[in-house]
């Protein structure tokens, strides 16, 4: 396996509100290689955005806390850094793109100023002309004529605003880009444009990317690796071939694929996953997916599953014995395609 750029080990994050404690992340393990894209897939409440915010230490003050774990960027634990050092990393080594382009840009500054701001912050010795040149360069790169840098965000459409956001994020050539559902709010045809542009820029800068999305189509299109999250844990991780073409999957992954209307086949009814994600203030003891799993066993109630590995593919489920090679009785049921309810 290539050099790991970022490694998250056993990350536990809670949110404390007036009434409850929300267990947002419960032992997340994730790694990203330099220059590669990993898709972080899951539904609302799985903890994807929390993971991204934790990397940048942008959890809401007084509400979000990292309880345990490490986030190691090129050998350095980001959780140990002082705030001033962390600020040097944000925008420079690690950047983030947020979901809603409408509110990501400050309406009272020109777009050129906003791109220039991040360049100036991390390159205090640049002259005005150098900063200007870089701003022009970034705008051309995202496909917006440089003359438009004096315009304000409201003069641009949603797709163009998202490009500007990407320009800001990549202005200092970061090593890692965190993209939180960057194209969800965009039309499909604009999404295609933006995704292609992101792919090209990634190649050019050799930026690694964590792409948060719920759209498996987008994942198949541009990701190298895929991690699937549920109730604050990574329950399955592997290369994109492992996930889309492998024969073994976590039951939740199977459910996710079954929920999507297939464009290629005509199906009468979809196969949704019954039920809802567990209450994050009161998570079950054993496997968190147990309540909704069609393959639930006695073991699942009490014992947290271990991770089973096969090459690059890891699954956190009792159905798969840790040595994978041997198949457990329940895995055999799995293979014969046990009837779903």
């Amino acid at each position, binding site marked *: 396996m290539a050099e790991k750029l970022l490694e998250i080990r056993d990350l536990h994050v809670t949110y404390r509100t007036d009434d409850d404690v929300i267990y947002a992340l419960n032992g997340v393990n994730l790694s990203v290689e330099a220059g590669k894209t990993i898709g972080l897939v899951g*539904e*609302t409440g799985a903890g994807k955005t929390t993971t991204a915010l934790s990397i940048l230490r942008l959890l809401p003050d007084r509400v979000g806390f990292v309880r345990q774990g490490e986030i190691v960027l090129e050998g350095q634990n980001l959780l140990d850094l002082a705030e001033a050092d962390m600020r040097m990393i944000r925008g420079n080594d690690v950047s983030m793109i947020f979901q809603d382009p409408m509110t990501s840009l400050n309406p009272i500054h020109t777009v050129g100023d906003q791109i220039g701001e991040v360049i100036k912050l991390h390159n205090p010795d640049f002259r005005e002309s150098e900063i200007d040149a870089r701003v022009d360069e970034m705008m051309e790169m995202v496909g917006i004529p440089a003359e438009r840098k004096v315009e304000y965000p409201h003069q641009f*459409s*949603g*797709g*163009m605003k998202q490009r500007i956001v990407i320009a800001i994020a990549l202005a200092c050539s970061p090593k890692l880009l965190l993209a939180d559902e960057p194209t969800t709010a965009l*039309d*499909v*045809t*604009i*999404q*295609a*444009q933006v*995704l*292609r542009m992101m792919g090209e820029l990634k190649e050019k800068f050799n930026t690694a990317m964590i792409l948060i999305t*719920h*759209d*498996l*189509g*987008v*994942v*198949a*299109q541009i990701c190298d690796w895929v991690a699937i999250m549920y109730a604050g844990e990574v329950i399955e991780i592997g290369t*994109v*071939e492992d996930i*889309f*073409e492998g024969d073994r999957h976590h039951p939740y992954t199977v*459910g*996710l*694929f*079954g*929920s*999507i*209307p*297939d*464009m*290629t086949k*005509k*199906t009468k*009814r*979809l*196969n*949704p*996953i*019954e039920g*809802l994600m567990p209450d994050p203030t009161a998570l079950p003891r054993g496997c968190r997916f147990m309540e909704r799993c069609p393959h639930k066993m006695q073991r699942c109630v009490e014992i947290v599953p271990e991770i089973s590995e096969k090459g690059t593919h890891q699954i956190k489920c009792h159905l798969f014995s840790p040595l994978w090679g041997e198949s457990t009785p329940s895995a055999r049921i799995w293979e014969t395609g046990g009837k779903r309810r």
Partner: protein
Amino acid sequence: MKAPLVETRNLKKYFETARGLLHAVDDVDIRIAEGETLGVVGESGCGKSTFGRLLLRLIEPTGGEVLFKGRNILECNRREMRDLRREVQIIFQDPFSSLNPRMTVSEIIAEPIKVTGTLSKRNEILDRVFELMGIVGLAERFVNTFPHELDGGRRQRIGIARALAVNPQFIVCDEPVSALDVSIQAQILNLMMDLQDDMGLTYLFITHDLSVVKHISDHIAVMYLGQCVELAETDELFNHPCHPYTKALLDAIPVASLKNRKEIKIIKGEVSSPINPRPGCRFAPRCAHMMADCSVLSPTLKEIGPGHLVSCLLYS
């Protein structure tokens, strides 16, 4: 051919703005037969949401006709419209803002019943509420809860129950699953299809998601900048798309499979403004097949196959 349940002829809606006349919906003709689903797809600014609301007269059209069971609803007076509301209903996109936060689930579902005077005794109304909750899969214990205590999927079920309360024949569904998680989407879509089979409902299904519309529709209308550019049966549209915009739309969708990891064909540019649109085809500036005539002549919907209409000069 049986008379359609819902039909529009030359339906138009223009808004006056400071910068000019906004053509939200421009000369749209559609027909929906009883028991069928017409999917309406398009991207932002195509006018599909406005179109849906025009069918219910939630917005007053600027021109054209909306025929329900052969009668032009635009000529109905207030009392006739009140009666009509029993037969035509709507499900909204946002399960958060489409429910009154100060009313309980049963009050929300009972509202259309009380307003149309279908039932008047408290007992009868509550019976019907419980019945509807059962139909949409809401547990009885939620009868006195408030919407903010429930998740998106359950809230959308309340919206569906409310739409079904007075036994309508036709329901306009304005992106009913777009705001929901994928697995909840699937549950709700299944529910809607089951209801259609059981109760013989007719749907107008508005969405931007082509995979969803393929799953649920019998026919599909593709809209662009207020006009209908292509209309066909679902399979026909996906197998033989004709209008360049339809083709671009289908090409732009990322498929959840490595086998079809295709080279996405991008259409250039952005949607032009619907305010004071220029003459000629509105898709022309972005069209790969643009010809000289396209910016001068406006194409109209022509039948190029059984039930397949396209509005493009390439097919004249």
